[in-house]
């Protein structure tokens, strides 16, 4: 499988989750049975094309319901996706992750692989998950804090809806202005940094990262073949060293390292059985720059 195939899978997944095409013209969202089920990735249910429910929005809605009941159904779906795929969802199935990857392909004078504070900032997404998705919605009934104050996927949905329905535009106030600023920051930083929202803010990425070590799909290193050359770590856009930590919580299972390893030491496994997916021979904007620029 090459990188084009991964891009095709990402595009197909984004389309399948947003195939209610007429919604983009009428400003009316899909109201069918598909919305009984949460999709695996971050995809706002108010997107005019959305065919399924957003797991993060559904979880907050369940937690903030007036009569609290443990959210068995939503949590069950999220744990299922996590247990099977881990962050493979991020690398292949999430429309918002795909959007950021497309933005990263826009040429810019400088692309940042990592920077001072990068590692610490990655913990922020866990705080977003715990505080904005779990604690605050439970404490403050009917308010999905993450959706209301942060989610850029929701803002994008609002923009798409208001493009088709001008009445909505008159209702936008300071919250929309704030959220539009967040979205703008995510879009602009995505041109320079690979998936900044996924790295630093996404509560769903944080949730799935907890499963990376125990999901059915994993990465494995053959220590007999690995020479420690570091080629895999140098190509990883998430700044992971897969030879040292193949199931690191930041790995989105893009597979780039698997095909870059000159010794074939890395492979995907499903329940510890190797599967022959040598994903992309990718040219990432980060690879085209001299090493000193990637600091």
């Amino acid at each position, binding site marked *: 499988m090459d990188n084009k195939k991964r891009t095709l899978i990402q595009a197909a997944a984004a389309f399948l989750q947003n195939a209610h095409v007429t919604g983009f013209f009428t400003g009316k*969202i*899909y*109201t069918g*049975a598909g*919305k*009984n*089920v*949460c999709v695996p990735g971050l995809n*706002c*249910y*108010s997107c005019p094309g*959305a065919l*399924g*429910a*957003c797991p993060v*929005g*559904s979880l907050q*809605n*369940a937690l903030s*319901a007036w009569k609290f*009941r443990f*959210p*068995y*159904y*939503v*949590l*069950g*779906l999220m*744990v*299922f996706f*996590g*247990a*099977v795929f881990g962050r493979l969802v991020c690398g292949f199935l999430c429309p918002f992750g795909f959007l950021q990857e497309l933005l990263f392909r826009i040429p810019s004078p400088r692309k940042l692989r990592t920077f001072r504070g990068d590692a610490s900032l990655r913990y922020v997404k866990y705080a977003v998950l715990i505080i904005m998705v779990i604690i605050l919605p439970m404490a403050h009934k009917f*308010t*999905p804090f993450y*959706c*209301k104050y942060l*989610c850029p996927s*929701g*803002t994008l*949905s*609002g923009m798409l*809806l*208001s493009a088709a329905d001008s009445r*909505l535009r008159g*209702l*936008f*106030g300071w*919250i*929309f202005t704030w*959220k*539009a600023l967040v979205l703008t920051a995510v879009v602009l930083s995505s041109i320079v940094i690979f998936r900044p929202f996924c790295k630093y803010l996404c509560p769903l990425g944080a949730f799935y990262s907890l*499963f990376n*070590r*125990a*999901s*059915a799909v*994993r990465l494995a290193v053959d220590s007999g073949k690995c020479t420690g050359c570091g080629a895999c770590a140098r190509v990883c856009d998430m700044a992971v060293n897969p030879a040292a930590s193949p199931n690191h919580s930041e790995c989105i299972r893009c597979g780039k390292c698997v095909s870059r390893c000159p010794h074939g030491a890395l492979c995907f496994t499903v*329940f*510890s059985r190797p599967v022959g997916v040598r994903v992309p021979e990718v040219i990432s904007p980060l690879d085209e720059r001299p090493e000193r620029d990637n600091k």
Partner: protein
Amino acid sequence: MERRRNILTAALMGAAVLLIAAGLVMGQNAQVLAKATRICLECIGIG
């Protein structure tokens, strides 16, 4: 080590299926459907 990890994976998948089934029995999917089929004002920046 790998064997233990696979057992954990299978246990997580099993637990997830049980959670989903329990949620379906309680009709929690209807709560998801009801929220997802109305435009979420908070999500789009109005509420």
